[in-house]
């Protein structure tokens, strides 16, 4: 058997069945904060039970096992073609084992061949670096939360959002308001300020690779992250949009340069069932350590 392929199947299994520690800790804190006897509290209790049960049974936390997004950092000369082949085979195997739902549909014919492999599926994002390390991160992003993502072009007159950080704040909070419970809140926002439309969304998603308890090294972005988290949690949307004290679990923002004519703010929303894991691999493709 292909060692790399086996490692990737294991990465998919664990990503689908186990919530990363940083996310689980944050959910527990949210449960403790919620008012007792409310439907918000019971929603969190079911979420807690579900996290434990999925791990114990080694089955998907959520039936929507989402878009399969690989982020691969490797040394110069690392064989990306071989990796992608192993990745596609691993996805097909993981689907047969029930770690992934048959979740990939031909957009023209509506046909679902049950393999999860097709044009653009799964998706690989490769990056080279100077070190010899091979890091593979995987995000399974469900459709409910993907559908509530939003991209704003500033100025946004209706929201009175100008081309400045206050304007960014207004549109990001609007995204939270519009999402309500539809993205399986409490959620985590990944945001990119700037870039073109495609890289803006791309960078908003890579913000979701950050741990929830890290802090942004850029002071103005750190302030914006903390402000949006606090403000969103004062809105009373709560888990599932039931009303309650926790609407967001985290906010992660980066900036990218823009052309003078464009000012995009791209927001990706991740559900509480935050499926994100990663591994360091050796040259043969064996798992050395887990990243989250």
């Amino acid at each position, binding site marked *: 058997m292909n060692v790399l392929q086996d490692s990737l199947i294991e990465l998919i299994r664990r990503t689908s069945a186990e919530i990363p520690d940083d996310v689980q800790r944050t959910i527990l804190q949210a449960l403790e904060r919620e008012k007792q006897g409310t439907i918000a509290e019971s929603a969190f209790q079911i979420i807690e039970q579900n996290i434990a049960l*999925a791990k114990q049974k080694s089955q998907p936390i959520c039936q929507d096992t989402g878009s399969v997004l690989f982020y691969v950092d490797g040394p110069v000369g690392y064989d990306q073609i071989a990796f992608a082949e192993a990745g596609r085979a691993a996805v097909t195997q993981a689907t047969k084992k029930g770690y992934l739902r048959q979740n990939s549909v031909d957009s023209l014919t509506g046909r679902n061949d049950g393999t999860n492999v097709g044009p653009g599926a799964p998706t690989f994002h490769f990056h080279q670096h100077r070190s010899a390390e091979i890091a593979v991160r995987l995000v399974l992003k469900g459709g409910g939360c993907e559908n509530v993502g939003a991209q704003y072009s500033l100025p946004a007159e209706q929201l009175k959002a100008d081309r400045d950080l206050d304007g960014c704040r207004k549109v990001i909070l609007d995204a939270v308001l519009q999402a309500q419970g539809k993205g399986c809140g409490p959620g985590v926002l990944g945001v990119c300020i700037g870039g073109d439309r495609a890289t803006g969304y791309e960078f908003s998603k890579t913000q979701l690779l950050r741990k929830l308890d890290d802090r942004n090294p850029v002071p103005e972005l750190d302030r914006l992250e903390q402000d949006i988290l606090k403000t969103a949690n004062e809105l*009373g949307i709560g888990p599932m*949009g039931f009303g309650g004290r926790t609407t967001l679990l985290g906010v992660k923002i980066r900036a990218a340069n823009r052309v003078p004519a464009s000012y995009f703010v791209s927001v990706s929303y991740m559900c509480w069932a935050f499926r994100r894991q990663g591994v360091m691999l050796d040259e043969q493709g064996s798992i050395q350590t887990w990243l989250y």
Partner: protein
Amino acid sequence: MIHLTAPFTEEKIRALKVGDAVEITGVLFTGRDAVHKYLAKGGELPPGVNLRDGIIYHCGPVVLKDAASQWKVVAAGPTTSIREEPYQAGIIEKFGVRGVIGKGGMGDRTLAACKASGAVYLHAIGGAAQVLAEKITAVRNVYLMDKFGSPEAIWELQVERFPVVVTMDAHGRSLHQEVFAASSAELAKRL
């Protein structure tokens, strides 16, 4: 906790109120995007599917066949319901549906249909695929599998004490409208 058991009569459904925590025992039929569009465009219900006084579950489960070739539900949480808003009211009225289970809530037309026909929207916990799969005691049948694929097929599921919350009732109340209005007002104070 209210225990709602089949048959799901109009009387039982009209007694439910927004905010009620309910556990359902009986049969659910899954149906999501493809099924709703198909039915709304005049598609026929396959023989064996009866939605009168029935409950539709917006869900695309993960289902595998076990060693004895029996279907086994591996994961089965709700999908976002608002995508069915263009179709749901017509389907409730045409087929006599009494309950719609999903997540995220639905809009004005569905709320009006719930009031007119005596139906409710029942919110399951999104993402809780394992807790909810454990409440499914049997897969009774599957329909339209070849046409729509596994997640979009109609699965007939026997459930026991399946937990949901009433968020839209048959009296015109919607928790989703109320939370949206309250959170909009709170946000306006903070801009």
